């Protein structure tokens, strides 16, 4: 092995430059922190946080630690992302398919939706929903019930709470149903590959997912009742709903705008994916006698999914990152709770911003590693 200076010098210069820049920053940071009497360290995480968060999935109040506050923020971020991803996917797939519809009106309607929501900044949309649209909702005492159980008011959406008895049994029955479906699917695929027989997997799966939980109700002693929110008067003009689950308007505005915005991008991914499957594939599949349903299921979708999934995952990542805009409307997500309130209180700028960034970085890198693995798995295996 012979080293040529030509190979070494550029790398050396780059590395030295990077080290110098980082060194410069660390040096300054040390001096600055010394001057201001701040010490570096993550010990504050176990201290008492002494601030409150309006909306939290886990038990939390001011007496808990900063780490607990971090968890609250993280869970709220994840909650908004998961709801957003589900709605955006459903909407995006519908709109994407609608854009390929032969029906002129549907096609244009979908195109209008995509062009409209894609070209307006997300932050503006969030503000619009939160400050303009949701503020036009009625006060709690004037709200009319939707289907008799939901109440959409200026203070948020009130939905009935589920009250379970023996929830474990119900949960296990669902897990059992999912496992059974997976086993049947694998078996069906084997049968199809070896004998060419089709097993109606879809109907069996639907049956299983309904029947097993139903059995748990009949035999396992599971019962479910609803607690409908009830209007309660606090003072002459102040009303709230009691009971049930209340979703704060921040959460509604955020999920609404995130999913409407991201759905436009997902719709474009879906459209590109379906269009990306060659016409010949469809015709070939039809010519060997597959029914339209089979063509879609066995030929088009597997190929289209291969094109659709990578960019769609990217959009999921974008949605998760965009959920940080929650800070603008005071939804207590990771950025607001941790990089906002906690930072103000402790003044530990470097530690807190780095933890926040590291969290997002971990989220996105782990998802992209997962996706790379999945891509490799479904890629066409060329011989």
């Amino acid at each position, binding site marked *: 092995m012979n080293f040529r200076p030509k190979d070494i010098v550029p790398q050396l210069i780059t590395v030295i430059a990077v080290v110098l820049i980082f060194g410069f920053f660390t040096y300054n940071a040390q001096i600055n922190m010394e001057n201001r009497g701040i010490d570096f360290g993550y010990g504050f995480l176990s201290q008492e946080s002494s601030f409150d968060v309006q909306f939290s999935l886990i038990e939390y109040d001011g007496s808990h630690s900063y780490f607990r506050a971090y968890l609250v923020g993280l869970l709220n971020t994840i909650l908004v992302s998961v709801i957003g991803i589900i709605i955006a996917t459903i909407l995006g797939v519908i709109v994407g398919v609608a854009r390929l519809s032969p029906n002129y009106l549907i096609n244009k309607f979908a195109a209008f939706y995509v062009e409209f929501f894609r070209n307006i900044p997300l932050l503006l949309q969030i503000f619009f929903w939160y400050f303009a649209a949701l503020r036009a909702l009625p006060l709690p005492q004037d709200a009319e019930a939707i289907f008799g159980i939901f109440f959409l008011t200026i203070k948020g959406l009130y939905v009935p709470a589920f009250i379970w008895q023996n929830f474990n049994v119900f949960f296990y029955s669902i897990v059992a149903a999912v496992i059974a479906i997976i086993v049947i699917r694998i078996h069906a695929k084997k049968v199809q590959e070896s004998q060419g027989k089709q097993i109606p997997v879809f109907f069996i799966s639907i049956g299983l997912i309904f029947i097993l939980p139903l059995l748990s109700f009949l035999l396992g002693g599971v019962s479910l009742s609803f607690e409908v929110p009830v209007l309660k008067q606090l003072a002459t003009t102040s009303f709230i709903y009691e009971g049930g689950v209340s979703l704060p308007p921040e959460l509604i505005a955020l999920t609404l705008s995130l999913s409407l915005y991201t759905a436009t991008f997902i719709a474009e991914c879906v459209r590109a994916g379906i269009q990306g499957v060659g016409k010949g594939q469809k015709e070939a599949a039809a010519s060997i006698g597959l029914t339209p349903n089979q063509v879609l299921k066995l030929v088009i979708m597997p190929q289209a999914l291969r094109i659709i999934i990578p960019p769609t995952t990217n959009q999921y990542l974008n949605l998760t990152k965009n959920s940080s805009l929650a800070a603008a409307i005071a939804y207590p997500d990771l950025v607001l709770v941790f990089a906002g309130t906690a930072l103000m209180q402790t003044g530990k700028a470097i530690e807190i911003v780095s933890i926040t960034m590291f969290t997002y970085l971990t989220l*996105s890198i782990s998802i992209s590693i997962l996706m790379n693995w999945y891509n490799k798995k479904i890629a066409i295996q060329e011989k």
Partner: protein
Amino acid sequence: MSKVNFLKPDKANLNTFLYLGTFLFFISIFDVFLNSFFNVNLTGFLPNFLSFLLPLILGFIGLYFIRIEYSGIKNLDLLNKHINTNNFNAILSLLIIFVIIKSLPPILSWFVIDASFAGDTKDVCTGSGACWTYIKVWMRRFMYGMYPNAEQWRINLSFISLVLLGAVGYFATDRFKKYLTLYYVVIYPLIAFLFIFFFISGGPVFFDFSYGIIAAILSIIIGFFIPSKFRFYYFLIVPILLYIVLKYFIFFEEYIELGKLDGLNWVETGAWGGLSLTFIISFFCLIFCFPIGMAFALGRRSGFPLIRYISVGFIEFWRGVPLITVLFMSAVMFPMFLPEDFFIDKLVRAIIAISLFEAAYVAEVIRGGLQALPRGQYEAAKSLGMGYWKMHIFVILPQALKLVIPGIANTFLALVKDTPLIFVVGLLEIVGMLNLAKTNPKWLGFAMEGYVFAAIIFWIICYAMSKYSYNLEQKYKTDR
């Protein structure tokens, strides 16, 4: 006339079905139309539920009757093909038509009919419609932020001149075409910077940085007359020499006062805002993120492992974090990293943060273009004896960049849409100004108008950009 089977429209009884179907279809639309525009319910005598669904049922039957294949009537066939292919599509088409008819009157009345345009106080806004007076009164703030009213001609003049200077490319004759790249990549951004720094902000003309700019411009102009053989060494040495000469021998301290453009007040960047700030930030980030992104794209494909790892680390880091945390970092964390007496303006900090952030995305887009080029291009260039830089500048990058124009345009579009986030560092562009105006006690309750106004502006900008990028894509597609 043979027996008419109403369950099966056919060509034999074309006219019967056509008249009946058209009649039913128009009745249904007429009903909805009357209902939504004049608030008259034709079918009010029916039970509630039926009255609500009747237009849909009538329209559906009407569309069913006129669904006759190969009728021979051109318009009918067209209609059937486009909105009436089967029952399901017919219902969807009807629903969409109804939704449009239903939603038109409220939208129209809010936007135009019940809206108030005149006057300049809140009192004129008594109608149920929009209060465009609010937008009218606050227009200057939405456009220019806190920039003093008397000085706003400076922004206008700068933007108009910059647009005119930017349009030079369209009028350039073939003789000057070859200089266009140089013009747009080096000279135009410099002119823009000079305009914004000296004219909009009214800063002192001669400070350290401006010596550098003058030196660069002078050396580039002289550079054209230097034989190409020596040009490399010329650019290596002369700009620095010029800088030193300018700084220490020609200009002296007393010129600094002289250099201030007469009558221009200093307007600090905190007062900048509104839509003009959106433009300024997008413009500078666009200029900065492109070369940085290109460098990291090349770095990621470099043969040197250390350079590659550093580039990958940079790109993945910025792509993995949300912009808002980056801006947080630039606001609260970055000052800690600088020497104590060293202060960077918050606008500059925001521009640096957004540029680095977008640069990572640009890098990935350009990398896509580099990867899409066939390897033959690299090999051909190498076999001609070109070195790394020559190969990339003359062979690889021109082709790769052409390939990634749509991707780059999308990134820039995202950049423009991300500019409202600068509220994090305390700069108020148009959305930020809206939030400020909304809380003004004299003008409470007009959030909707403001957001709709900003949405329209952003929509026009972004839609125009996306259409333009689409056109560019089509244009370059034919080239290859």
